[in-house]
């Protein structure tokens, strides 16, 4: 069994501290919603406590739910390396990537979920299951009157048909699903709510840092502050296309001096990351301006500093559920060059909050363009910050889940 330690990071500040960012009326609204849900309980279930966007969101949002009075639990399913290899294969297949079809994988997936179903309790008023790994846990709702939600964070726009057909009957046992983009919806017998993931502006990953600290991080990794820094922060995952980023950087390098930072790590539910890391190491061999940083999952401050020090932030994903690293960069007023895929389309409005690209060549061109036009880069960064403030902060997650719970309780009464 893989252990799931809770990562070390700064504690979540009181909800009222967010008023200085989002405004007091928005905070009052959250307290009002919480009063309407007094005495209710809820549970979040996912597959990892460390690494990746889902764990990060839950680490921040669960304490806030507790503060406003909702009895909120967070459980993480357990599973061996084989189970997580299978779920990673499913994950890739749901993103439309190649899939080696094996019946025993379905059996193993179900058996592992059965074990977790027996280990965990689901007596809360609301149960939110995140992503496909724990999807079959919905079997535990039999005989209960509570509300179940499947929160899918991944890009389901072009799923492998066989895997999706296997999972769909489980999805339809929920009361509702939540997706990050309309393109991820499918004909289902349950309502599909549209809710964007969010970042916490007061978390170590996003809070304002002293310039001296930023300098010290650059110094630690040997990055030159005086030369342009192009950064992609992502797990070492083929869907994040780190090799494509290196190709784009090499095209840029023909015309403009710059350094490339690829910062990321793995997640306990992603056994593939070490293989991808080795491929990226090979591709960047011999270039002293490429900084390949395989960081532990608790490197929040370092990631924050690297993003703040960047001239341009790139997210060249091939598929993307949402791309919280894009949100983080926009929040830090960074010009972003990102693939026009999945949830990125909700964040990067082309030429307004960033630049959308569709190829290695396009990525390279937009990096060059922004390096040559710092005034435009600054304008994009400012608009990106405001866009995140209005839509993609943790207070929105808190609000949207509470509204969802109210709607479920009221039988989704229409407007």
């Amino acid at each position: 069994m893989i252990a799931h330690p809770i990562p070390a990071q700064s504690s979540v500040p009181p909800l009222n501290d967010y008023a200085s960012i989002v405004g007091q009326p928005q905070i009052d609204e959250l307290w009002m919603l919480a009063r309407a849900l007094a005495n209710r309980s809820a549970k979040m279930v996912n597959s990892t406590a460390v690494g990746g966007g889902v764990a990060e969101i839950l680490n921040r949002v669960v304490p806030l739910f507790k503060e406003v009075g909702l009895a909120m639990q967070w459980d993480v399913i357990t599973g061996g390396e084989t189970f997580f290899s299978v779920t990673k294969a499913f994950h890739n297949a749901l993103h439309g990537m190649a899939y080696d079809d094996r019946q025993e994988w379905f059996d193993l997936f179900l058996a592992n979920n059965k074990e977790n179903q027996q280990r965990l309790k689901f007596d809360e008023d609301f149960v939110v299951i995140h992503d496909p790994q724990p999807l079959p846990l919905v079997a535990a709702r039999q005989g209960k009157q509570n509300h179940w939600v499947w929160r899918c964070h991944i890009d389901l726009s072009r799923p492998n048909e066989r895997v999706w057909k296997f999972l769909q009957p489980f999805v339809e046992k929920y009361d509702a699903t939540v997706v990050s983009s309309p393109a991820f919806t499918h004909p289902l017998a349950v309502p599909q709510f549209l809710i964007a993931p969010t970042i916490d502006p007061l978390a170590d990953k996003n809070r304002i840092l002293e310039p001296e600290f930023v300098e010290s991080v650059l110094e630690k990794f040997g990055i030159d502050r005086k030369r342009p820094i192009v950064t992609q922060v992502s797990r070492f995952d083929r869907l994040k296309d780190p090799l494509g980023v290196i190709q784009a950087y090499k095209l840029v390098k023909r015309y403009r001096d710059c350094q490339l930072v690829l910062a990321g790590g793995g997640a306990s539910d992603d056994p593939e990351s070490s293989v991808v890391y080795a491929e990226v190491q090979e591709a960047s061999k011999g270039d002293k301006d490429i900084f390949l940083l395989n960081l532990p999952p608790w490197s929040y401050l370092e990631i924050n500093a690297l993003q703040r020090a960047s001239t341009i932030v790139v997210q060249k994903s091939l598929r993307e559920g949402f791309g919280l690293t894009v949100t983080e960069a926009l929040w830090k007023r960074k010009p972003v060059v990102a693939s026009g895929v999945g949830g990125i389309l909700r964040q990067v409005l082309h030429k307004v909050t960033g630049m959308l690209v569709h190829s290695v060549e396009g990525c390279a061109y937009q990096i060059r363009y922004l390096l040559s036009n710092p005034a435009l880069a600054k304008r994009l960064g400012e608009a990106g910050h405001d866009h995140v403030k209005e839509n993609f902060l943790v207070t929105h997650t808190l609000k949207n889940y509470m509204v969802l719970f109210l709607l479920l309780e009221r039988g989704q009464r229409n407007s």
Partner: protein
Amino acid sequence: MKHARRPFQFVDAFYLVVVGLNSAHTLRDFGKQLGEVSQLCIFCHTFHSLATHHYTSYSSDFAQWTMAACNENELAEQLGAIDVRAFVDLEDLRSALVHVVDGYLAAHPASGERPAFEPFYFSETREAVLPVDRRASNLAEMSESLRHLSLHSLHYHFVNSRLRLHLRTNDFSYWIEHELGFPELAAQINLVDFYTNTLDEVRAEIIDCITPWIGR
């Protein structure tokens, strides 16, 4: 200072979007489905989207899609120019939208068949309304309450109210005219432009309108 017999009761409204099963891949398909989708869907892409689009060219999802995904700028401008303030009934609003799309496709038939860059996903809005512990009995209290109002509440009272009241006005103007007897102020507030302002700016403009009247 004039006091109302019936105080203004603020409420807060919360919305979530449910993505429907209908999507359109061409303008022709879009126009056809526009005539068939639910009223909740028309509301979602017009009244509701007004509160959420500050960075796109149009606050109407329909106009934005025809521009960004179909590259039909003329149609986008025509759809964007349909002012929801002129409508107190969603069926009338739908008819106006369909009329514009049909007219455009009649003049530009080839535009109807070109595949859009991305599909239009027809969605609906789900609403949860909660009473706020805040009332106003006079203009001073109204002004003070407006300062503390969430943007959703402002949108509910100032924009969506037209569909509830079935009048071409908003909750604030209606109350000011009927409870305080200031039709001139009511009309002035009703002219505050929520198309060209953010909701924060709308709030500030309404307060600016009210301020000189406090004490009358």
